């Protein structure tokens, strides 16, 4: 059936100039309109989507890579990247999933089996591996509530009206260079729709990982919470050791309609590269949410991986009384560089936002907080509280803070606090004098520093974040 549709699409629209064999599991490196058509066809997309991709691609070719971040890296050759790779076969059930993939999950301490067994907590997993969704569970239970939780490709095919209405509505396709690239070539990602008044009965989770050589990954996530609904969504990533730089440019759009609440938690653990920064992931992410009246969006992120992180999960507080939150822990060790923060755009009356950012730098890590609080001319009674703290471990690392404030009228109430501290020898000695080993002592101090953010994570996710933080900082002391 799918094949027939595909044949029709091939015959009708794309026969001219189409040079890539659709049977290929992997597209040759390079980016042009043929590659985009190939991806769209591979995904069995309707024509309107193909056209949108091509439009985005044409915009992208007119744009320039931004370089305002406090980041240093070699130029990216976009023609050297392969924009599509599929796993060898598409498994139908858990038993068919590549044992190596399952093993990778095990190594990350987040085995799917364990997730299922978590006492009383059901976690639906839509695992995206190498650009193709290989597994969706618990979908039936979600369907009972009218919740849609599927890959973005399926959503494009099965729920075109929702996708057409909301995709690009918060992050326009030409929003920035990386968002435009993603709009042209995204290969998978997740779609969530929560109907009016429904409280999603379980945490929704997607684990992403990269495992083909030299393949960029471009996820696209779209979450729509209809009026008065609630959803908590967890996104976690990891990637195994590798030598070549990998480009990752995801886009996440959240829409919280009137009275809705979206809680979006991320654990990001892409391969950070070696001590020189060689081989790590380049992570350029655009995440933005729109809040209608009385809605709330809360971003929580724990960023421990990637060689380069460029990421500013933001909230547009359009509706009156809407609330935006950003809780972040960003760790840079080895030669990692992170330029991350948030934008809180206050447009509605009595909107409020909270920013808690914790940056941890060790070894040669460079950590930058960049945040914007913008208060529009109609945002009477707008309030923001920002707290940006940096913790330094050792003396080769760096922390930088760039808070920006734009207020059209002076009617907003904005508070900003920033601290930079070093783990003191006296704190370490105190803990060691009580019999706690040096690494555990550092970990205890670091966890204390991150506490406000970890408290925002769903419980089992917080456990994972703590374990990851320990793993990341292993060997960065002394």
């Amino acid at each position, binding site marked *: 059936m799918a094949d027939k549709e595909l044949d029709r699409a091939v015959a009708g629209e794309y026969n001219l100039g189409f040079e890539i064999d659709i049977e290929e599991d992997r597209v040759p490196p390079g980016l042009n309109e043929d590659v985009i058509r190939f991806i769209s066809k591979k995904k069995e997309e309707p024509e309107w989507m193909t056209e949108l991709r091509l439009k985005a691609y044409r915009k992208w070719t007119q744009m320039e890579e931004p370089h305002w971040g406090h980041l240093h890296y070699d130029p990216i050759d976009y023609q050297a990247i392969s924009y599509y790779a599929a796993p060898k076969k598409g498994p139908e059930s858990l038993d068919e999933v590549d044992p190596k993939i399952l093993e990778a999950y095990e190594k990350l301490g987040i085995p799917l089996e364990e997730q299922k067994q978590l006492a009383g907590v059901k976690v639906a997993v839509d695992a995206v591996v190498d650009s193709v969704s290989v597994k969706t569970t618990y979908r039936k239970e979600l369907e009972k509530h009218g919740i849609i939780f599927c890959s973005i490709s399926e959503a494009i095919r099965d729920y075109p009206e929702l996708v057409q209405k909301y995709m690009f509505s918060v992050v326009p396709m030409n929003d920035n260079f990386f968002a435009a690239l993603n709009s042209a070539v995204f290969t998978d990602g997740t779609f969530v729709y929560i109907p009016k008044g429904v409280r999603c009965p379980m945490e929704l989770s997607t684990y992403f990982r990269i495992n083909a050589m030299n393949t960029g990954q471009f996820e696209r996530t779209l979450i729509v919470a209809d009026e008065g609904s609630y959803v908590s969504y967890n996104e976690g990533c990891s990637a195994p050791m590798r030598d070549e730089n990998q480009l990752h440019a995801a886009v996440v759009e959240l829409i919280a309609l009137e009275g809705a609440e979206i809680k979006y938690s991320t654990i990001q653990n892409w391969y950070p590269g070696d001590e020189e920064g060689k081989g790590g992931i380049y992570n350029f992410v655009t995440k933005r949410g729109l809040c209608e009246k009385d809605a709330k969006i809360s971003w929580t992120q724990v960023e421990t991986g990637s060689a380069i992180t460029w990421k500013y999960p933001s909230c547009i507080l359009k509706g009156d009384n809407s609330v935006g939150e950003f809780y972040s822990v960003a760790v840079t060790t080895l030669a990692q560089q992170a330029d991350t923060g948030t934008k809180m755009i206050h447009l509605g009356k009595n909107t409020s936002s909270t920013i808690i950012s914790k940056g941890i730098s060790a070894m040669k890590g460079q950590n930058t907080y960049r945040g914007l609080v913008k208060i529009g001319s109609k945002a009477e009674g707008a309030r923001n509280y920002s707290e940006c703290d940096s913790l330094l471990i050792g003396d080769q690392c760096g922390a930088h803070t760039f808070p920006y404030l734009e207020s059209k009228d002076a009617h907003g109430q904005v508070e900003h606090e920033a601290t930079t501290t070093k783990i*003191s*020898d*006296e*704190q370490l*000695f*105190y*803990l*060691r*004098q*009580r*019999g*706690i*080993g*040096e690494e*555990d002592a550092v970990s*205890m*101090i670091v*966890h*204390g*520093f*991150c*506490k*406000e953010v970890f408290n925002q994570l769903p419980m089992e996710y917080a456990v994972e974040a703590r374990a990851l933080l320990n793993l990341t900082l292993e060997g960065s002391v002394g």
Partner: protein
Amino acid sequence: MSVMMDIQNLHAGIGEKEILKGLNLQIEEGKVHAIMGPNGAGKSTLSKAITGHYEVKVTDGKILYKGQDITDWEPEERALEGIFLSFQNPVEIPGVNNAYFLRTAVNARRKHLGLPELNAAEFLRKMKELVKELGMKPEMINRSLNVGFSGGEKKRNEILQMMMLEPDMIILDEIDSGLDIDALRAVSEGINKLKDGKRSFLVITHYSRILDYIQPDYIHVLMDGRIVKTAGPELVAELEEKGYGAIGAEG
């Protein structure tokens, strides 16, 4: 007499400056030893040298503890073997829950001793009892370690840790400084409760006030980096009367 700690010809300093200049001191098992001396004599440096503080460099001599030379041991190794220091100025550690910290420390020690770890409930029961005994507010259990604690609360928290950890060799560095009379009494009661005829105490102070509450067996006078006089508790009265100057002249 059985010796808990034997400090032999200890030379130690901070930076280039030598502060302990050939200090000899024997601490007996089950006894309370008080070290008295004027400011700058090296009292705090001695407590740091015994616990392996990062600032203090030992240049000569050695510290034997339970018969082992611990001069070069890591601070946590000494702690696990039962050496406890009640800090003069306990440091604040934001976000680290007091109970969580102490349970980690207690279980690290229990593990070292080959004892089963205490579970959260067992631990909390014990901690709550002691918090009450020491006249601490119950909310101290879940506050961040020493953060925003008053001087008296910090000292009581040190004693709480001591009582939970049940160490063998306890060093109390100026435990009475900044304590009002109620706090001093509570702290002293806690210390006295731990006296069991095996545990040794080294009470470092430059006031004799605390010694009215914790009866010392020996008084050592530390001046200019050496122990210049050792005597029984009667020495306290003499020091009160004549001051350290007279002792220094004798020595």
